[in-house]
């Protein structure tokens, strides 16, 4: 039984992360962008866990736990924002939200 190479795991993590990035760049719907961000966070977590596994240390998993907590907090605030945005703009199109542009 051949052991899994560390690079393989990291490449998987990278591909997952970049898929999430493509999603953020491509989708106009805020909800989909949030989903893509979740993918990216998860991929980052995967990289941490793989590193922890390589060195046989628990720190990788600890970092994943922190990412998890952060994602939970982020998602709760972000979804509340999505509700407000939908309420005020009647749309989820991110291109409609350009209040911060330089006039």
């Amino acid at each position, binding site marked *: 039984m051949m052991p899994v190479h560390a690079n393989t795991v990291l490449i998987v993590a990278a591909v997952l992360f970049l898929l999430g*990035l493509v999603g*953020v*760049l491509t989708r*106009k719907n805020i909800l989909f*962008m949030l989903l893509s961000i979740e993918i990216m966070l998860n991929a980052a977590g995967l990289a941490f866990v793989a590193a922890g596994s390589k060195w046989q240390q628990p720190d990788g998993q600890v970092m994943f736990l922190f990412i998890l907590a952060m994602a939970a907090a982020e998602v709760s605030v972000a979804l509340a924002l999505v509700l407000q945005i939908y309420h005020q703009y009647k749309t989820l199109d*991110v*291109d409609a*939200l*350009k*209040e*911060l*542009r*330089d006039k």
Partner: protein
Amino acid sequence: MQQYLFLIPVLPLAGFLLLALAGKTMSKRAIAFTGTGSVCVAALIAILLCTDYLSGNSGNAVYIQSLWQWFQTAELAVGLTLRVDALSLVFIFIITFVGALIHVFASAYMRADRDYARFFACMNLFVASMLVLVMADNLVLLYLGWEGVGMCSYLLIGFWYETAANCRAANKAFIITRIGDTALIIGIFLLFRELGSLQIPAILDQAPQRFSSGSGAITTIALLLLAGGMGKSAQVPLQTWLPDAMAGPTPVSALIHAATMVTAGVYLIARMHTIFLLSPLAMTVTAAIGSITLIVAGCSAMVQTDIKRILAYSTISQIGYMFLALGVGAWSAAIFHFFTHAFFKALLFLAAGVVIEYLHHEQDIFRMGGLKKQLPLVYYCFLAGAGSLAAVPLISAGFYSKDAILWYAYSAAGGNAIFWIAGLVGAFITAFYSARLVVVVFWGDRKTPVGSPPGRTMTIPLVILAFLSITAGFIEWPHNLLNVHLFSEWLGTVLPATSLRGGHPPEFILQIVAVVITLSGICTGYYLYFRNTAVLAQWKSSRFPAAAREFFFSGWKFDALYNHLVVRPFLFLTGINKRDVFDRLSDGIVTFSKQFNRSLSFSQNGSLRWYVAGVLIGILFIITIQLIL
């Protein structure tokens, strides 16, 4: 007496400070008292100084009062030192005495003006500056006074600043005299470089040892000083500002633009006579400029219709005589002409002021007339002044001074027949327009409604000046008539005597010619403007005389010439440079940052995906660099 010297310029200066600082709160009476009083006391001290000078005459008396050190650098020490010798004393006397009379006159003449205090403040400052100019011990102090009188002239020409034309006239005077002033300061720099000192006595002492006669350096210096004098004294080709300077109040014209300031150039050349004597070329140029000026300005004076402009052109012409005298080396004759000219020209201006006010500010002489009966006193005063201007033989001061100049123009070492003929032509013209002035203004019928006659404050200065216009000449007689030469003896301690050249005809013949010319000028004026005016009407209708009249009337088209030569090209250049060429650089920085800001704020477009793409590109950039390096 020496310790009171400083009072002469300080009193008018104190008057100026008081009027300038507190003038708004003072009553008109107090203003007139302060403004006139300061100059009158200065005049009194000046007269005391003169008597002291005469009584304690030790041959070569010079009063020196050193007040304090102005500034001191390694090689240049400039002290605030007053130095009065015979030449300065003549000028001080004229400035304070004629100035005091004009101040007295002005206190009545300007009484209705709402800027009474400002007027007297400027006049006092002028007198103070002019006194500094003539009392200066060194050229820096002289230059201080020189610029001071220029500034006061500017302020007073533009006294009624609410009229745009007056402001333009003031600007014109200031800018044109500035050309001369620049030449003068360069000349002073050159003198300092060559001689290492700016003390006037030191310069006069060292110049003959340092320079050989007619060398390039001394000629340059002399010509630069001459250019300075030409600017201030309104000589061709820098004369165009003086006729326009008549925009100021009439007492200003009398004091600044006739009696004193415009003769500063004469003072400068007489003061620096050693330098001019070392440069025959500069002497000839001075005489040539004087003769050209006296004819050019005289021709213009013949055809003017504004009484003040006639007098202005006549002033230019008379200063031309002084330059002619200076140029041929007749130093004391030039100063003597300045002396008499100050009296009769101030008198003419003041009398003209009375007439103008009497006729409700009418300045056109052809709308005057018939004033002989209404204003007999002013008429006789004016007649004395005009007679002196025309140089009526024997009974007018102008005759004695002008005769001396004409005589020296022919016979002095630097003189020749051309200068003499120019002077004679000028004498004819002067006599002609003097007669024209008297005849047109005072004789004939009344054409304009009149106001109230002048008060005593205005007539007393006139009478005093008229008396002096007749008698001032008696202190210096022609050599062949009486052996009275008080004036040239007085100046002999400062200025060298005039050397004569050989081979000139007897003085008597030249005098007869000059007298005949003068009298024929007067007669021509009388004939054309009183006896037979039809001739003039006929001339006006024919083409050539009308064209000539137009040419003279516009002052030989000098204004138009400068307009085309200088003003328009300058305006053209400023038009090009309106958006300053050098500002382009800083403007470029501004434009660049604005453009950059615009392109950057294009990136700040509020689009979330755009920002993410920016982050991605940044990551790509960093990783690519890491890969390459």
